[in-house]
């Protein structure tokens, strides 16, 4: 570490002027069994392979991509549930990528996680009071005597009845359980919350309730969010900036409006055009669709050069040999493609 760091009372160090969170060329390779009967050759699943990402205080950044693109692994790396194979994860300028558990403790308090599945992420044998209270106790947030009242306060913040602190998770519906998970994350007063598909498991009407709750919390508490979802509408609604991932890499990243209106990477364009549009029935002319063929290649043996080239209609010889860098193509919009350009006509038809 070169710059001077100032330890805060909480034990969290910071470099003045550094962004809240910065990922630099982060890689996560998992060991996989080799193929064949002897399985001698070790293979590596390159789940995340060189991700750069910056989050400023209070900002929300959306991570989108299809299953297997590495977005959930990225969430686990940011929260340091996984130790990266390579690269730096800087929190307020301090690299936490390989920090020991003991030193990491205060950072864990400030970086919290909300899980996708509200059924498996709550211990069925603990009451809600214990679940949220444990988070308070672990991080020494309140004295023992004030624990219950703080739990009730948190339940009220997330829109649950504070009198229900002694109930068990099975007594709540899916949407209510997700609120419990949110209360648990808020208990530590985090500066950043990583939300991994927080509304995907919920019904449409409940999903909107939880989204409104998250949005109010963000506005009132100024918490930064890394918001992971596969639903492009949900991400657009919630995020200031959006990063699109494909096969372990960020292929395009930029401000929300730029990315949705003028996507420059072919994959982003294909992704947006594949979203079924309800506007068709309101008289919006049916959009011309880009249909991708085939499936995402295996992360064990990704294509050489640009990873999207096997499904890309713009692919030339250069794409197989040269790996395109993520470079700025428009203000604040970075694209990793040799032939990046905005679409000829808007992919998403404007509703009148």
């Amino acid at each position, binding site marked *: 570490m070169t710059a001077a760091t100032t330890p805060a009372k909480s034990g969290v160090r910071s470099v003045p002027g550094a962004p809240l969170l910065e990922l630099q060329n982060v890689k996560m390779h998992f060991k996989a069994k080799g193929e064949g009967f002897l399985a001698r050759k070790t293979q590596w699943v390159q789940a995340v392979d060189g991700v750069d990402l910056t989050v400023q205080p209070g900002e929300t950044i959306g991570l989108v991509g*299809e*299953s297997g693109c590495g977005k959930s692994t990225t969430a686990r790396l940011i929260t340091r549930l996984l130790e990266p194979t390579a690269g730096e994860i800087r929190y307020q300028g301090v690299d936490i990528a390989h920090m020991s558990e003991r030193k990491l403790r205060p950072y864990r308090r400030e970086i919290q996680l909300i899980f996708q599945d509200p059924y498996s992420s709550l211990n069925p044998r603990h009451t809600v009071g214990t679940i949220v209270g444990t988070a308070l106790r672990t991080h020494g947030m309140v004295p023992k005597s004030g624990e219950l009242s703080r739990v009730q306060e948190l339940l009220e913040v997330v829109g649950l009845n504070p009198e229900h602190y002694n109930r068990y998770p099975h007594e709540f*519906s899916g*949407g*209510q359980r997700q609120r419990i998970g949110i209360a648990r994350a808020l208990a530590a007063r985090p500066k950043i919350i990583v939300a991994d598909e927080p509304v995907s498991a919920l*019904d*449409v*009407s*409940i*999903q*909107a*309730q939880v*989204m*409104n709750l998250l*949005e109010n919390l963000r506005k009132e508490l100024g918490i930064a969010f890394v918001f992971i979802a*596969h639903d*492009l*509408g*949900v991400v*657009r*609604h919630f995020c200031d900036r959006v990063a699109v991932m494909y096969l372990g890499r960020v292929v395009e990243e930029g401000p929300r409006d730029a990315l*949705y209106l003028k996507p420059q990477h072919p994959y982003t364009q*294909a*992704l*947006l055009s*594949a*979203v*079924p*549009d*309800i*506007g*068709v*029935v*309101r*008289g919006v002319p*049916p*959009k*011309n*669709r*880009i*249909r*991708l*063929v*085939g*499936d995402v290649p295996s992360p064990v043996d990704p294509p050489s050069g640009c990873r999207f*080239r*096997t*499904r*890309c*209609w713009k*692919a030339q010889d250069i794409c197989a040999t040269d790996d395109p860098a993520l470079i700025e193509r428009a203000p604040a919009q970075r694209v990793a493609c040799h032939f990046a350009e905005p679409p000829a006509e808007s992919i*998403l*038809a*404007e*509703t009148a």
Partner: protein
Amino acid sequence: MSDQTTGVPQTVSRVPRAAATGEEAYLEVTDLQVQFPTADGLVRAVQGLSYSVPLRRTLAIVGESGSGKSVSSMAVLGLHDRRVARITGSIKVGGREVVNMSDKDLEGFRGGDAAMIFQDPQSSLHPYFTVGNQIIESYRAHNNVSKRVAKARAIDMLGRVGIPNPSRRVDQYPHEFSGGMRQRAMIAMALVNDPKLLIADEPTTALDVTVQAQILDLIADLQRDFGSAVVFITHDLGVVAEIADDILVMYAGTAVEHGPVNKILGEPLHPYAWGLLESIPALTGEPQPLHPIPGSPPSLLAVPSGCPFHPRCEFKDRVPDDWCTTLRPDLIPRTADLGRTSRCHLKDPDKVFETEVLPRLP
């Protein structure tokens, strides 16, 4: 779909189908009730459901979990265990009554005249048998042919659903297929006997958007080729807008709105349908605050009296005499347009939608 490794995207736009008028219904459901007696009481999963689907048409059944959309469709294929489910009413498929059909007749009917595609291809394919084996079994159960003929048919079907290299793939196991390919294999299995009725229960929910788009195209193409009647169960209104001709919106075991897709999604008449539209964030325009339906769906053990939606409805105060809490509305036309029905007491719902709901849609 030719080769999956060279990416040549096709630019397609679906042609809207001409509205069929006065066609004879192939599937006709009349006053269907499905109930499950449990230790906690009687679960009224489906109450008085009626609809019909002619050949070459697609009906989308939309609703949240527990609204009865899957339970009612399983009843159409006679998939409920009669020892635990009480089914009354009538389900006619091609003129044949399915309710109380004997097990032997059901065997010939399922997989032959009517087939189903399930949500999760992972758990609907047997991991121990090759994909080809499972398709062959389905074909030979309904056709008296040799294994060799059935295998040729299986290869042909795999090719038709866009699986590359079908003669090699036919001998592979489900785990060797990707998620999208498994779903294609299941579609091939469902269609191997040219069913006249296809029920697709959330067939794309477990898939990624780009794969979902491929599968939706595939189902639309196959429907055109085979001329089947399709019942498409989903909770995604975007998918409905793309694939369906008609929509049935279900809530707490009953149909609350029914009609052509452009009417129901364009200018719905039921407050529940309004709430659904207001809960979906748009992909264009300035993001508006969402306006979700308060509360959660009722338990089917204790469906609210009167209109089942009244505890969550913001318009119930406009209906006189506590009708909403005491009187169950009928599914009837509420406006001059007789082609669509809705189950709500509210007066002039079309005007309420236009003046109050439409401006705040996301």
